[in-house]
């Protein structure tokens, strides 16, 4: 299963980071290929992404289900299930205070293509996950730091 973990230091207090990450609407458009998302309830949402798989670009719809929202540990975990593509996965955001004005934000994302050609799709997706995670994490960092400025 292709998995990526990306960490960066946000120059902001942990509460500010957590407050930002807790509002999905704020950072959702930072995900590469983001088209839209629709919240079904507190935990579930449908995401539409236009993403590259190898040389191809496809529109995928995914259901995201938040499985763990821990305000104390500053951690959000979620599961992903493909609607129009056979894929499952999940992810985690964890915020850890480093100092009064520094927070380590960790983003873990894993996704597994299913079906007969799943192994092939996974090979194509693997090199793409890290840049996607990095771009999103860096945009979140920039946005939080801009809010703090």
């Amino acid at each position: 299963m292709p998995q990526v973990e990306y960490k960066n230091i946000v120059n902001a207090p942990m509460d500010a980071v957590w407050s930002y990450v807790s509002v999905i609407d704020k950072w959702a458009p930072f995900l590469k290929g983001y088209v839209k998302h629709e919240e079904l309830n507190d935990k579930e949402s449908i995401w539409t992404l236009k993403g590259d798989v190898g040389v191809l670009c496809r529109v995928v719809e995914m259901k995201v289900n938040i499985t763990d929202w821990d305000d104390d540990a500053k951690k959000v975990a979620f599961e992903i299930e493909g609607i129009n593509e056979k894929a499952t996965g999940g992810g985690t955001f964890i915020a850890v205070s480093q100092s009064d004005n520094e927070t380590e934000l960790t983003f873990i994302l894993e996704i597994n293509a299913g079906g007969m050609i799943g192994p092939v799709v996974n090979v194509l997706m693997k090199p793409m996950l890290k840049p996607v995670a990095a771009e999103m994490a860096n945009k979140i960092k920039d946005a939080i730091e801009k809010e703090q400025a």
Partner: protein
Amino acid sequence: MTNKPEKWDMETDVLVIGTGAAGLTSAIVAKDNGAAVLVIEKSGLVGGTTSASGGAVWAPCNHHMTEKGIDDSREEALVYCKQITKGRVPEELVEKYIDTVPEMLKFMEDTTPLKFEVATMPDYHPQFEGGHDGKDSRTLGPLTFNKMELGDSMAKLRPNPTMGLPLTFAEMDEWDSICKPQNVDFELIAQRMGEGLCGFGEALMAALYKGCLDRDIDPIVNTRALELVVDDGKVIGIIARQEDKEIYISASKGVILASGGFEWNEELKNTFLPGEITHPNSPPYNEGDGLKMAMSVNAKLGNMTEHWGWVSMSIPGEEVDGRPLSRGSLTERALPHVIIVNKKGKRFVNEAASYNDMFKPFWEVNENTLEYKNLPSWHVFDQQFHDKYAFLTVMPGEDVPDYILQADTIKELAEKAGIDPEGLANEVEKFNGYVEKGEDPDFNRGKDVFDHYWGDADNKPNPSLGYIKKPPFYAMQNYCGSLGTKGGPRTSTDAQVLHMSGVPIPGLYAAGNVTAVVSGPSYFGAGGTIGPAMTFGYLAARHAAKQ
């Protein structure tokens, strides 16, 4: 009159425009014949239309056939080709092709990493005199190639959007995966991809690209040829555009046009083609640049109404190069339990015929309404098809996506698609009667070994014909695809572009889809595009290098 500049920005002996099979073969051969070579490419990636293809080469009397003990002869091949070209191609051009393709292949395999093996594909009309079936195939398929050998240049190789798996034709046969892709060992394929292997057209182009890099030829990408530079009637270079500046490139021995067809140029299509191409299958850079340059020096044109037609379908949201991806129909139309119908619900073609030739009825026009008789049209299939075979990217047994229409009855399906319900119901009933007999008297589907090759050998009594009777029923709309146009400047047997007067234009050569191709209106067999492209690229380069 001349448009020769006071100063050239780049100078070379032979300038090649385009990086498909014709272009890179030309570059390698020109270099090995002592010429300094530059290659320019309009897009940002190397590989041209060939990268998007199966990478096969149709080559009568080639050395791989000889090694396998397969009989062939010049005479047999010529007899066959004449029935394909229907008198619309100069005989000396066909003869030159037959005489040179074995030599070209041997040279390329001896001097580059490019390697082929005999496939088992029949000629596209094996029933014609001189035609070969799959047991003595004239089609060669490329071996897989490891892109890692390209080093940093790997990122410049154009990937294949629809036939990108690192597989060979022989493996597809061995695994019986042509009609049943579910037989492919996808874990093995994933492992190969992880190692850097590629297959089909991408493998062919990767190997040619490596051959170029080994000769210190690295195509200059994002450079579009705009205009020929002519002095005293001789082509001596070009004007090209790089980003927002124009540059002059001299070519003392010759300019070789290998820039593809014009299937992405609306004005040229409207000018020359008798029907629409709404969904080209090639990269969107084939805009007739080479054709326009040839026309500017009064080249003699030929075969302008023809293209490598391919009935295609489109999965909503799927894009490549920023444009909707057009997926050509191969097994989807040739396997049992599927037919193609027009809006009246009527079949109008042998669905299993070669993709180029079965396309022709799509452009038929009603003489009263001037509407296309067979557009729009649809693939119509049943659950038996879906139980056994893949349709586009949908594997057997997988959920059928919304973009494929489905219904519990044929009439209901017809209503959803906008097909005449009575017409479709009657046609399906008639077709099922043909299935019972194992014969299709309307269109001879399943009559020859070509149709059987693309059918299912396990389907009895005819590998091409299967009942459409198990619900649910499915429909998917077709579009006019094309792997490229195949009309352009006529060329000599040395691939020199001919002037309207019939004499060669000094300094100008052409090979591949930019030209009036050697197969004329039809198609010899799988690889009937790339084989001539490489062969006339080879001839052009040898002639130019000697100037």
